[in-house]
């Protein structure tokens, strides 16, 4: 099983060679600067979409999305103990696939009781059915000092590959910036999309400077952006980029930022998942194109 192999690895460089990505995914791979780990630019979020409880019909539906995601190259699947039954759903889907090597298992620790962190991580591993995570993050910076100590300890022991922090909805950016400056985290996850670009001012430049990979959550603002933009004209640049629709253009915009290797859209539909994955293929907007996309969006 993949995850037992990873658990045994202690050298970061060796641990993140991950040849599976290169051999199965046609899209360009992104690199986590601190370790050299490579993974596809489009991951898979699980907030709301995979929280289906014990519903056998919906579990099967989610498993199909996970299977299609793996078939299209895999990459980061992100969850949290806060997301209801999403971890169990992912575990269900991965078990059916025999725990494919191309999944970059990403979860969070989310408890205000600092000493409960290790037990919660154990529960999360059990829910996923994996022996180790590729990335664990402090969710919304809750009890971040204690949890970072736990996660860095796990990393030092070779039980964890990457340590990260998360925030969303543009909250707690000042604290996030401070922790990014003071601690050697590998990743930060924050909300970044065409409508939420506050991170461009300080956090994304800081991430580049410090070699921290940024993961974009809420790329579609939980579907609100594509809904609001439906029927609105795409900018001229979309044709040059081969983007047929707003969701693809929104994702191309996000993953074209040099500090931002991965976006994690969530979906319950296989077709949408494939459409999201396709956004990483073909050309991405350069700086001038990004400016034109922003200007067009502002004018709508």
């Amino acid at each position, binding site marked *: 099983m993949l995850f037992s192999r990873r658990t045994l690895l202690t050298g970061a460089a060796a641990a993140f060679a991950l040849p599976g990505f290169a051999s199965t995914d046609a899209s360009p791979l992104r690199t986590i600067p601190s370790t050299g780990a490579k993974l596809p630019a489009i991951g898979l979020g699980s907030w709301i979409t995979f929280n289906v409880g*014990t*519903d056998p019909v*919906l579990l099967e539906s989610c498993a199909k999305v996970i299977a299609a995601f793996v078939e299209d190259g895999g990459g980061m699947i992100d969850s949290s103990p806060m997301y209801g039954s999403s971890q169990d759903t992912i575990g269900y889907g991965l078990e059916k696939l025999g725990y494919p090597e191309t999944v970059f298992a990403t979860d969070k620790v989310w408890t205000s009781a600092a000493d409960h962190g290790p037990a919660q991580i154990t529960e999360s591993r059990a829910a996923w059915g994996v022996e180790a995570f590729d990335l664990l993050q402090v969710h919304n910076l809750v009890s971040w000092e204690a949890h970072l100590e736990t996660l860095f300890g796990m990393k030092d022991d070779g039980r964890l590959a990457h340590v990260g922090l998360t925030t969303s909805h543009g909250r707690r950016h000042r604290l996030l910036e401070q922790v990014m400056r003071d601690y050697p985290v590998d990743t930060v996850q924050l909300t970044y999309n065409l409508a939420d670009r506050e991170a461009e001012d300080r956090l994304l430049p800081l991430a580049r400077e410090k070699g921290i990979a940024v993961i974009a959550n809420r790329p579609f*603002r939980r579907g609100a952006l594509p809904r609001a933009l439906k029927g609105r004209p795409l900018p001229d640049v979309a044709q040059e980029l081969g983007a047929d629709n707003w969701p693809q253009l929104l994702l191309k915009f996000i993953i074209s930022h040099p500090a931002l290797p991965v976006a994690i859209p969530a979906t319950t539909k296989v077709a949408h998942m494939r459409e999201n994955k396709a956004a990483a293929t073909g050309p991405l907007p350069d700086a001038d194109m990004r400016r034109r996309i922003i200007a067009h969006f*502002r004018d709508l």
Partner: protein
Amino acid sequence: MRDMFTYELSDLMLFSERVYWRLFDLENTALWPMPLLAPLALLTALGLHAWRPKAGLRAICGLLALAWLSVGWNFILQRYAPVNWMMTYVGPAFMLQAIAFAFLAVRGRAMGRNPGPERMTGYGIILAATLAYPGLALWQGRTMASAEIVGIAPDPTAFASLGVAFLVSGRWHRLAVLALPCVWLGQSALTLYALNGPAAMAPALGLGLGLVGLILLGKRYANPG
């Protein structure tokens, strides 16, 4: 363009509307034929109340005690909590409400025949919870398979409980059957507003009725006689 987005209550939702309604579908299937028997039992108890109020009220309270116990355990803790971790903390409150109804069922002292208008209001609320509430599924474009049924689903059970407040007498007895159902219906209205605006109307109406009951209760006992 940026201004068209504002912070929404839906940002706090951890599950989708589809998942929420599927819970009732699964619960009705799992407990069949209880979705048929539970409303029938409550209607029978209501009929008994019209004939012999004291025995009828004992029966209604006894049935609602079982209903809160069953909904708390089967629906809230087993079905709903996996998608909404906050329900883990709500389940015990349903058990407490079950105890309150069980207490009312065995305590006859405060079970006199209330004045006609109050009694009729109580009957109306219980009948609406039992007969009309399941039909909301059709109004909302769902099938009856996912209907919310008294004794199986929390909202109609809380709604029916409000009706009992108009059948019992005694300040604390009324408070005991109004407080928690009002809180539940309030949170349910917020949840459904976030998931699907129009669906929030039913629990919001229930909350309104409950608050009216509380106000009337306050006035009556503030100005006895």
